[in-house]
């Protein structure tokens, strides 16, 4: 069944149509790629799904439930995690604390509990700590856990964003250009990481410019151009689609 369904969604910014009646279905436990030239509306779509924008028209359904009018923090609590194209880490917090913040949605210790610091909240804090360390080990940042997030290298910052998003035990993970600015070796590690995430039965929706990454990890791909979906299919058919080649892939492919 569809985990995420985008139904006839349009988004306008002051007369500019950034998205034009887009339809999209993402199935449970697949890796779905979203490609298209700059300004095609990919990040806008992400912001719509995560509640930062409200669509001008159309619906967004997650597990059959309308989420287009929910505030961002409630949407993430449903199990939708994301990373950002222009990295948004908590710069002056430690790497470990960044991941712990990511677990905010799945923990519940409140003000009074933390003041007393015993019983439930203490046990929970221990669990948070263990889980955050696990996730950091998974993305290869365990040794840097006490550094400030801003002191990490670019590729490490991207991986930390992934770890933070995994903190909320997502059902659906949105990755916004995770390979941007990475070198070849880092990209290979990233492909491995995405495969690992899939192994945790998490569905992944991926925006990416790097064709190599997209073709390697995605099972299905949709192509956006000027806010419209111009193609959808498996990597092979996308690679051979006339319109896609014309508008986006160009001669380079």
């Amino acid at each position, binding site marked *: 069944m569809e985990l995420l369904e985008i139904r006839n969604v349009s988004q306008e*910014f002051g007369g500019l149509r950034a998205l034009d009646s887009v339809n999209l279905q993402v199935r449970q436990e697949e890796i779905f790629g979203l490609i298209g030239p700059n300004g095609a509306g990919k990040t806008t779509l992400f*912001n719509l799904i995560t509640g*930062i924008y409200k669509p001008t028209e159309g619906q967004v359904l997650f597990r059959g439930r309308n989420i287009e009018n929910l505030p961002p923090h409630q949407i993430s609590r449903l199990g939708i995690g994301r990373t950002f194209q222009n990295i948004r880490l908590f710069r002056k917090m430690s790497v470990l604390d960044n991941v712990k913040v990511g677990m905010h949605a799945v923990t519940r210790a409140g003000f009074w509990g933390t003041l007393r610091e015993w019983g439930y909240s203490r046990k929970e804090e221990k669990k948070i700590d263990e889980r955050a360390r696990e996730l950091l080990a998974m993305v290869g940042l365990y040794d840097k856990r006490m550094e400030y997030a801003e002191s990490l290298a670019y590729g490490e910052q991207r991986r930390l964003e992934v770890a933070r998003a995994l903190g909320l035990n997502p059902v659906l993970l949105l990755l916004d250009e995770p390979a941007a600015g990475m070198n070849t070796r880092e990209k290979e590690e990233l492909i491995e990481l995405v495969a690992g995430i899939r192994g945790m039965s998490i569905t992944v929706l991926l925006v990416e410019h790097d064709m190599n990454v997209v073709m390697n990890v995605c099972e299905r791909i949709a192509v956006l151009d000027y806010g419209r979906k111009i193609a959808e299919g498996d990597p092979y058919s996308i690679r051979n689609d006339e319109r896609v080649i014309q508008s986006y892939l160009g001669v380079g492919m």
Partner: protein
Amino acid sequence: MFWQQLINGLTLGSTYALIALGYTMVYGIIQLINFAHGEIYMFGAFAGLFLVTRFGVNVFVAMLGAMIFCMLLGMLVERIAYRPLRGRSSRLSALISAIGVSIFLSTLMVLIRGPQTDRYPDTIEISSFSLGPVQVSSLQVIILLVAALLMLGLQVFIHKTKMGKAMRACSEDLDASSLMGVNVNRVISFTFALGSALAAAGGVMVGLYYNAVWPYMGLMAGLKAFAAAVLGGIGSIPGAMLGGLCSGVLEIFGVAYLASSYRDAIAFGILIVVLLVRPQGILGKPISKKV
């Protein structure tokens, strides 16, 4: 009574509008509440006073002199306290720096000349005439006329000159303008100069109208003008004009019909109500976040 208060309110409001323009232009471009703007206005009032008393110049010449002085002061403040922070610090840092400048400037004035209040000498003959039941003083006419001329001039400048276009482009999108070859630093510097000049004109006129200038006059006037800019829609130039006039009228009516001792509270009451009901103000666009 009503019409009389309306004229008084519009006179006060037009000076608020002149100050509010500086807030709104700077906010439109760099999203900074230029907290020191009220102090620039205060310096303008004193610069005008200085020129009138020391050199015995005509009030209009003094106003012009004050405007030029404040242009330089505004650019200097931007250069020293804001530009070093741009691009590498949070908005919170920039705002705190602006507050620092504001305190620095008002205390500087106290150290220069003491905290007491001064009055403008009677340089212009104030006559008053009746328009039906309303008493209008020549000073009110002058203030309304000068304010209207300055705002008209600003509109023409913004829409007809190259620098005006650059300013509008920067308030749409600073980064894109920079990529298009607009010298962003120059535009920002110029925006501060323009806003400061308008505030200086407002300062001289308020000094004349209330016949009082003192070093802490900038704080309250600045806050009220900011409230006016928010009322009109922050970032919108016509909004600042409208918001200024509305604030002035509301304040005068509040004093006349409610309670005079709560005068300074009225502006903040307005601010809080606007934020509750319509945060983007009368003419502002809804704010969209950049992600």
